């Protein structure tokens, strides 16, 4: 196993591994979103990013509003209250703060595209999407995406072909990770296993840094192996205001507050000053929230029972050592 420790501060990870013009995958299906990393991307003023995110919530909305995104690959973008994601809507309907090209799919189709990207499969055929607005061939909807439609050589049926989508960099917040990048996550995982693996570089932000022994005592929980990871950032509460299974609930009032504070471009800029531009790092951000509020987001403990993988040091019935 690669023995290079990859621990670094968020600012260094984003500076070293995210470049202007990159195609960026942001992990976390509703839960486990990399808010802290996204804020650092905004602070560093990255430009012309393509953001690919299966379920885009208010982090993507902020990235769009901050003007760092020129293209969005997604299946939906909203504030999960649910209500409107105002920056997204302003960009699509009024090109404020700039034009954002949209490449849209259904969740299953985008999962297949990430899967094909992770495995570098030429394409995967599916029976979803057909006839919908995402089927540009049949509906002439004006949608832009990479899908093609063919006749199956097996049975002559019309099928949708999903090609791979790949990314330069992937970022996700997880519960725990060792210093070498072996990352473990639990909860609702959506597309993230394949999304992360469709990236050339991966940045893992973790609630806790743990010893490799913790990982090796439960290797089935590993989401991405260390050799695929470029940087590991210890960043507790890095997914606030989104949730992290076992660590914190979704901060619902914050989402309502965000809805209110983003209705116009003007108030949005004030919001961003307070929470992003005028904070140097995640610690500053958490300071604005206050310890009391954070503690109130903690769920009750709800622990799994340990399981054993069994330690075997000699070969049964075979002379050894």
């Amino acid at each position, binding site marked *: 196993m690669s023995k290079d420790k990859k621990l670094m501060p968020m600012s260094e990870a984003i500076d070293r591994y995210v470049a202007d013009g990159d195609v960026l995958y942001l992990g976390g299906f509703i839960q486990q979103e990399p808010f802290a990393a996204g804020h650092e991307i905004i602070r560093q003023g990255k430009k012309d990013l393509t953001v690919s995110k299966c379920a885009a919530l208010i982090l993507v909305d902020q990235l769009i509003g901050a003007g760092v995104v020129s293209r969005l690959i997604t*299946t939906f973008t909203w504030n999960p209250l649910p209500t409107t994601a105002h920056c997204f809507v302003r960009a699509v309907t009024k090109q404020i703060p700039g034009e954002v090209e949209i490449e849209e799919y259904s969740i299953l189709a985008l999962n297949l595209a990430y899967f094909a990207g992770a495995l570098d499969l030429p394409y995967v055929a599916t029976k979803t999407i057909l006839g919908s607005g995402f089927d540009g061939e049949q509906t002439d909807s004006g949608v832009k995406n990479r899908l093609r439609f063919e006749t199956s050589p097996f049975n002559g049926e019309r099928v949708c072909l999903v090609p791979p989508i790949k990314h330069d960099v992937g970022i996700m917040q997880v519960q725990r990770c060792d210093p070498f990048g072996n990352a473990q996550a639990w909860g609702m995982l959506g597309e993230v296993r394949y999304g992360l693996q469709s990236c050339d570089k991966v940045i893992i932000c973790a609630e806790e840094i743990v010893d490799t022994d913790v990982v090796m005592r439960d290797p089935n929980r590993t989401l991405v192996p260390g050799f695929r990871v470029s940087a590991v950032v210890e960043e507790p509460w890095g997914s606030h205001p989104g949730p992290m299974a076992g660590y914190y609930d979704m901060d619902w009032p914050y989402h309502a507050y965000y809805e209110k504070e983003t209705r116009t471009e003007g108030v949005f800029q004030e919001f961003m000053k307070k929470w992003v531009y005028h904070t140097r790092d995640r610690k500053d951000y958490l300071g604005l929230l206050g310890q009391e509020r954070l503690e109130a987001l903690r769920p009750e403990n709800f622990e799994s029972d340990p399981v054993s993988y069994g330690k075997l040091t000699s070969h049964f019935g075979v002379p050894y050592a």
Partner: protein
Amino acid sequence: MIVSAARLIEDKSVLMVGTQWPIIVSLLAMSLHAPGITICYEGGAVLGKVPDRIPFFTGDPVVNSSSVLMGNSFDTLGMVLHGGRADMALLSGASVDRYGNINTTCVGDYTSPKIRFGGSGGACDFGSLAPRTIIILEHDKRRFPEEVDFITTPGYLKGKDDRIRSGLRASTGPYAVVTTLGLFRFDEKGEMVLRAHNPTASVREVKEGVQWDLKVHKDVGPLDPPSEEELRVLREQVDPGGMYLREARLLKGREVVI
């Protein structure tokens, strides 16, 4: 609407459940006549019980501790839905047209929309693949155009033949639409037909509530009003805080301070 939709769910069926009304509808059915249903969410969850609090949406973290399977979207949208193991899908939508096509994408042209909504999520998959899709939404004439501006979720397209021509499986398609005014089914051509109206709404009112000349079933009549037991379970068990029944759900109209 919630009660009428819940009544359409058969016990032991396997459901793909979307965000908003489908959540409370399916949990009400599970708490009433259908304790053996399997509820699946697009993010990869298969519920094991009525969650400890009602989920705001299907990605609500309460789902993490109320499920018998938490996996990937391939586990539910993939193996349950595309794999042909789901009996039914429940969806909301911004608007629905004459052939059950749903729009949750935009008003106006897709490339330069007047209004933009969130988008598909898994909805397109639900409507493309489920043997029976139930669409649940508040009735409002603007939500019922003759033809939607964008087909986020395919219904019968321009009729059943058109759906089959597109390549979608013949065994799939919209099954019912349930609104605050009535219950709609689809005829052999895939066109929406009023099957029953809410006791408080007339057939005429319903017809005026859509933008085309709505077909009415010959045996149309009023729906049974919610029973006391149905309302009690809904209010006391399923949604005791009234999250889905009051404005509190959207936190609208309240001062929000951080």
